[in-house]
C-alpha cells in the first residue's frame, strides 16, 4: 500500500492514469510531463499534430517504451507490461499483416500472442468474422484483400481478446463510409460493454462525434484536457447565428458586431459585458422577424488550429531519436 500512496488519489471509475510522464530522446522532449486520467467505459480522444508526442505516449501506454519518469496506473495498480499487455488491444497507425499468411491462421496467431488459448481464439475469430461477414476469408491471404478489408481485419484482431483498454490510432483511415460506420458502431458497443477506448486521430469531426473526453498534446506537452462540451464552452466566442427573413441590422455597435452573413443567417458576436438576451431584446425592439436564434460553438477543428497553429510541430516528427 505504501507504494500507492505517492500516487494521487484515484476515483473509482478511473481505468488509466498517467502521472507526470516524461520521455526524452537525445535531442528532444518527446513527452514532457504529461498527466491525465481516463475513465472506465469512456471513449477518449488523444489529439495532436504530427510529431506532438502522441505515438510516444501510446507506446508507453502499450508497454513498448518505458517512460523516463512518471507513472502509469492501470486499474489503480502500476502498469506492468509483462502482465497487463493482455488487457490492452492496440491498433497502431503503422499497421500491417504478413502478406503471405492465411487470414484465419494470422488472426489465430496474433490472438495467441495476446495470451488466448487456441480453442478460445478460434471461437472468437469465428464470432467476429461472422459479424463482419468475413467468414469466406479464412483461407485467403492478406495480399488478396483490399485496404479497407484488411482494416476491418485489423480491427477484429485488436478487439478479439476482449481487452479492457482498446487503443485505436487513426482507425478509419482508408475505410469507406459504410465500413467506417460499421466500426464506429462497434466502438460504441464495446464502450457500452465497459471497454475503454483511446482514440487517436487528426480528424476532428470524428472526435467531436465519438469522444466523450479529449486531451490535446503539442510539442510534448498537454495543452488541453476536458470533455468535448466543456472545451467548446471554454473556447466559445459568444457567437450567435440569427435566422431571419429580411436580414439583420444592428444599431448598437459597441455591444454587437456582425461577423458575416450567409444564406439567410447572420452571425453576430456579442461583446464582453453583454448577454444574448440583450441581442434578442434589440432584435425584438427593432421588430425583426426571428426564425432561429442559436449560439455557435467553435468546432474542435477551429480550436485545434487556433492552439497549434504556428508551433511548427510537424518539423519534430522523425527527428526524435
Amino acid at each position: 500500500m505504501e507504494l500507492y500512496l505517492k500516487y494521487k488519489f484515484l476515483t473509482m471509475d478511473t481505468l488509466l492514469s498517467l502521472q507526470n510522464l516524461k520521455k526524452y530522446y537525445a535531442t528532444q522532449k518527446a513527452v514532457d510531463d504529461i498527466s491525465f486520467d481516463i475513465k472506465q467505459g469512456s471513449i477518449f480522444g488523444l489529439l495532436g499534430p504530427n510529431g506532438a508526442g502522441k505515438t510516444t505516449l501510446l507506446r508507453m501506454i502499450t508497454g513498448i517504451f518505458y517512460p523516463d519518469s512518471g507513472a502509469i496506473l492501470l486499474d489503480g495498480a502500476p502498469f506492468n507490461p509483462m502482465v497487463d499487455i493482455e488487457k490492452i488491444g492496440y491498433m497502431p497507425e503503422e499497421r500491417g499483416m504478413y502478406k503471405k499468411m492465411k487470414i484465419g491462421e494470422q488472426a489465430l496467431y496474433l490472438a495467441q500472442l495476446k495470451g488466448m488459448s487456441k480453442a478460445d481464439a478460434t471461437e472468437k475469430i469465428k464470432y467476429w468474422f461472422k459479424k463482419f461477414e468475413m467468414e469466406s476469408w479464412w483461407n485467403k491471404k492478406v495480399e488478396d484483400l483490399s485496404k479497407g478489408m484488411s482494416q476491418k481485419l485489423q480491427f477484429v484482431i485488436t478487439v478479439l481478446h476482449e481487452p479492457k483498454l482498446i487503443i485505436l490510432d487513426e482507425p478509419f483511415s482508408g475505410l469507406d463510409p459504410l465500413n467506417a460506420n460499421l466500426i464506429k458502431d462497434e466502438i460504441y458497443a464495446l464502450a457500452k460493454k465497459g471497454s475503454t477506448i483511446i482514440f487517436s486521430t487528426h480528424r476532428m469531426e470524428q472526435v467531436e462525434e465519438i469522444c466523450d473526453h479529449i486531451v490535446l498534446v503539442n510539442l510534448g506537452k498537454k495543452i488541453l484536457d476536458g470533455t468535448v462540451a466543456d472545451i467548446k464552452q471554454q473556447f466559445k466566442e459568444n457567437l450567435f447565428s440569427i435566422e431571419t427573413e429580411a436580414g439583420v441590422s444592428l444599431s448598437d455597435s459597441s455591444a454587437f458586431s456582425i461577423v458575416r452573413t450567409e444564406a439567410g443567417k447572420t452571425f453576430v458576436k456579442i461583446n464582453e459585458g453583454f448577454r444574448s438576451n440583450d441581442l434578442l431584446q434589440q432584435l425584438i425592439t427593432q421588430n425583426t422577424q426571428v426564425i432561429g436564434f442559436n449560439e455557435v460553438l467553435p468546432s474542435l477543428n477551429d480550436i485545434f488550429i487556433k492552439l497549434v497553429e504556428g508551433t511548427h510541430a510537424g518539423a519534430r516528427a522523425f527527428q526524435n531519436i
Partner: protein
Amino acid sequence: MNKTWLIIQREYSSRVKNKRFLILTFLTPILIVGLIAATTYFSITGVEHRNIAVIDPNDFIKNSLKNTNQINFSFPNNVDSNNYQQKGFTDILIIPKFDKNTKTDYILRSKKSMGLMLQESISTKINSAIEDQMLQEAGIQQNILDSIHKASQFSELKAYEDKGSSSKESNAGLAMGIGYASGLLIYMTMFIYGAMVMRGVMEEKTNRIAEVIISSVKPFELMMGKIIGIGAVGLTQFLLWIILIISLTSAAAGFLPSDIQQQVTTLQQSNGQVAGGMMQASESAVKIYNIQHTMATANWPLIIGCFIFYFIGGYLFYAALFAAVGSTVNEDPQDAQSLMFPITMPLIFSYVITTMVTQNPNTPIAFWASMIPFSSPMVMMARVAYGVPSAVSYWELALSMLCLVGGFIFTTWLSGRIYRTGILLYGKKVTWKIMFKWAFKKA
C-alpha cells in the same frame, strides 16, 4: 517464453511448408551427387585424344611409352617439328640422345597445349625409363626391377599418431577435406540463414506488422523467436540432406557390379590385406575399399558434434547481427547492402583463413582465428578435423566454445538493443554510428 515458442513455430512452419524450401532441400543433394557423378563420368570418358609422334634415338624409352586410352604413341620416321601436324599427329615429342653425364631436355611441341597431368605422366614415364636403363647398366636384372616396381605399387605411406599408449592411423588428406568441407558449409549457411533472418525482419518492418506484434510481445522475444525458428529450419535442412546423401550414395553403391561388391567385402574382412592370390581384387574394389578405410580413420562423432555446435553457435552469433541490420532498413533494400558490409567482411576473411588452416592447423593465426567468435566456427572446424587432442588440445576446444557462447550472448544483447529501436523507426536512414548509439545508450 510461451509466446517466443509461438513465434518460433510460426517462423519454422511458414518456411518449411514453403515450396521453395522443399525444392531446395530435395534438389541440392541430387544436384551435388549428380555433379560428382558427371565429373567422374567425364574424367573417364570425355578426355581428349592425343596422337603423339616420338623422335627417339634411344631404344630403351620406346618400351616405357605404352599407349593408353588417352595417348597414342607412334615412332614414325620422316616426321619432324615442321610437318607433324600435316601427318596427322597432335604432338611431337623429341627426345635427345641420352648421355648419363649431361642433363638434356626433351621437347614437346603441340597443336594445342597439353594438360599438366598429361605432361607430368609422360615425363614420369620417360624419367623412369631412363632410371631403369641406368639401373640395368649398373647390372640389375630386369626381373628384379619388375618386382621392385610391383612392390612399390602396393605400398603407401601410412601415418600414425602416437598419444601415450594408443596409436591411431591418421590421414592428412582426409582431415583437410573434412576441414575444408565443414568450414565451407558453415560459411555458406551463415550467409544463407543470416540473410534469411535479415529478410524476415525487414519483411516485418516494411509490412508494418512489427508494431502490432510488439504490442503483444517484447521486441527481444520477437527477434529471438525469428532467429531460433530459422535456425531450426537450417538444422532440418541439414538433417534431410544427410539422410538424402546417405541414401543416394548407398543407392549408387548398389549399382556396382556384384563381383566388385564381393571383393570389397572380402577386403573388409581381411582388413585390407590382399593375401595369397592378391591380384584377384580388381583395382576398383581396392579403390572403394581404400575410400571406406580412409573414411573410417576420422573421428566422426567428434566432428559431427563439433559441427553441430559450431553451426548453432556461429549461426546465433551472426544471425543476431543480421537481425539488427534488418531492423534498421527502411523501404529501400539497397540500404541493407551497405549496412551488411561490416558483417560480410569478417565472414569472407574467416573463410580465407579457413582455407589456409586446412593445410596447416597449428599456426598462431590458426590458433587465434579459432578463438575469436567471428571466425571460430569455420576455423575451428578446419582444425578439429585433424583430431582432438592431437592437433587441437581439449582446453583450446573448450576455450573456443566458451568464447563463441560468450560471443553470441554479446551479439544477441547488442542486436536486441539496436533491434528494439530500429524496428519501430520509419523514414530515417540509419548508419552504423547511429546503431552504435542505440546499443549503448541507457535504457
